[in-house]
């Protein structure tokens, strides 16, 4: 790639810079196209390469789909005919799903508030605890909720408790990240004033920073509740209570009439929470 530019442009945007110089040199009318085509080509090749590797690794077999097509059609037909008489039997699991989500959110959110203050430079002057909390939270966030649940189910037993513990960890990861970032962005004038007036960091954070983030905190709490409802519907697949356990049960017996009813319930629950959450969050902002 030759660059006619007399000015040695380096770094990002070098391609465009070269293009602009070329305009001056070559034609006053039409800008010369910056030569970035080879970059796109490399990117496309890399992506195609990875995709090919992935396809080989997971043994992609479209013929398999065709072979099982009839199966899929049968399942679909059963799925669109939910068996509503099954509804009373799902109520317990449905209730447990909601209970797990509410408890998980309550505990998780309560624990996350102090941790968020520890995990923000703006509110925690102590570098060590800041790093430790952030690191631990990053690790916690990297593990998906169902993985937690499957471990807890074996460790502390099948049922709602495992699900709740898994949800609490899941919530901690999300809340601490969101709230500590909110704290990073807050106007620190009040805190400075409180510190200058002789308050301790704890007092300054409590008096000046907490009110600043409380709308964000509330709003994120509702958002996390929404996520928890979603998560707690499926936690049962590994035995952690709620609707998921029911899914696991009916899918083992291929009872798709029941399965589709459960899925409808999940849909209704998720969408209802979604609407509630956007309504409440909308009010909090205003």
């Amino acid at each position, binding site marked *: 790639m030759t660059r006619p530019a007399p000015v040695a442009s380096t770094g990002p945007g070098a391609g465009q810079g070269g293009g602009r110089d070329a305009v001056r040199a070559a034609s006053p009318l039409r800008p010369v196209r910056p030569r970035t085509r080879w970059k796109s080509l490399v990117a496309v090749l890399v992506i195609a390469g990875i995709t090919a590797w*992935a396809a080989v690794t997971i043994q992609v077999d479209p013929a398999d789909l065709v072979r099982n097509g009839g199966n899929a059609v049968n399942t679909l037909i059963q799925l669109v005919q939910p068996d509503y008489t099954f509804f009373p039997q799902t109520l317990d699991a449905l209730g*447990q799903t909601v209970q797990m989500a509410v408890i998980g959110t309550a505990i998780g959110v309560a624990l996350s508030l102090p941790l968020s203050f520890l995990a923000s430079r703006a509110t925690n002057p102590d570098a060590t605890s800041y790093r430790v909390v952030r690191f631990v939270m990053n690790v916690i966030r990297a593990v998906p909720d169902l993985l937690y649940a499957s471990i807890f189910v074996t460790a*502390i037993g099948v049922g709602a408790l495992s699900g709740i513990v898994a949800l609490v960890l899941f919530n901690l990861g999300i809340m601490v990240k969101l709230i500590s970032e909110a704290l990073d962005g807050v106007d620190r004038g009040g805190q400075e004033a409180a510190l200058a007036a002789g308050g301790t960091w704890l007092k300054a954070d409590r008096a000046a920073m907490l009110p600043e983030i409380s709308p964000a905190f509330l709003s994120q709490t509702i*958002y996390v509740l929404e996520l928890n409802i*979603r998560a707690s519907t499926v936690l049962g*697949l590994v035995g952690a209570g709620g609707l998921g356990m029911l899914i696991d049960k009916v899918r083992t017996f291929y009872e798709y009439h029941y399965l589709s009813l459960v899925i409808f319930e999940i849909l209704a629950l998720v969408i209802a929470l979604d609407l509630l959450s956007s309504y409440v969050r909308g009010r909090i902002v205003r």
Partner: protein
Amino acid sequence: MSATALRPGMPAAAASARPRRPRQVLRTLVSVLVVLVIAASFWGVDLSWSSIAQAPASLLHIAHLMFGPPNWSQLPEALGATMLSVAMAWFGTVLGIVISFPLSLLATRGLLPGVVRWPVRAIFAVLRAVPEVVIAVLMLSVTGLTAFTGALAIAIGSIGTLGKWGFETFEAVDRGAIEAATAAGGSRVQVMRWGVWPAAQPEVLAFWLYRFEVSVRASAILGLIGAGGIGKMLVDNTQFRVWDTVGTLLIVVVVVTMIIDQLSGMVRQRIITGRWQLPLAARRGRRGSRGAGGLGGPADAAGPGAGGPGSGTGVEPNAGSDAGAAGILSETSAD
């Protein structure tokens, strides 16, 4: 977002003396209700209180078994399983992109009539509401327990979010270029290609990558219900209580997820800002210049869910389900 600023009526009241506390009947009512709901959940949930008392001890015990020390001899096998999971996530995401991209064009306002737009949007909404694992459960019972099935489930699961982010980004594009392309006599396709795509491209690419990060997590989960990969290995070892191997697997999951997030974050950063920088480094470097709105990190710029490019800070409590996407986006962003 400050709560104290801009409250109309405040100065007038303050002028006389001290402002009276506004009555907050609604707030009290809602608080009471929330407390009641939480209490009812605690009271009604089916828990054996004895197991709660034992839980911390048994968790500590198992943590000790897992990490003291983890069984490193299983590491090669664990890495192999992880590669399978990552492959599943990648292939599923690519497939999801291939399917969702044209669909999100169909759902974009101003391109096609509402008759086409709304059904497509409804499909996106339903797909977003069904948890991925449930889709996978359905798929698994059709095509069996293979990694390919897992990839298909990821593909279907990602169509909803990808499609929604797609059309929202296309609609948020500045109208100028579109008008110019239209005025120059461009057809719909040409307007899309030259008026919309150049402006939307960085963001679209960034959230494709972001979606891959989400899929990596999803693929680990899909293994739990039988789709193979690291999740399957984990569930097998958990069931037989081979805790030291479970410890190794957890470490592998955490490390691999973090590495992928960092790499992907780096590429997203490059796409959005034109600079190569590790997200971890970015966090430290730009702390000083960070304003109230921008929380840093490429994921913020990649948050098309929250109404408009660059505004998806995740903390901004944007009304509407869009905020979900924004929140998730920063959930795993630049850290």
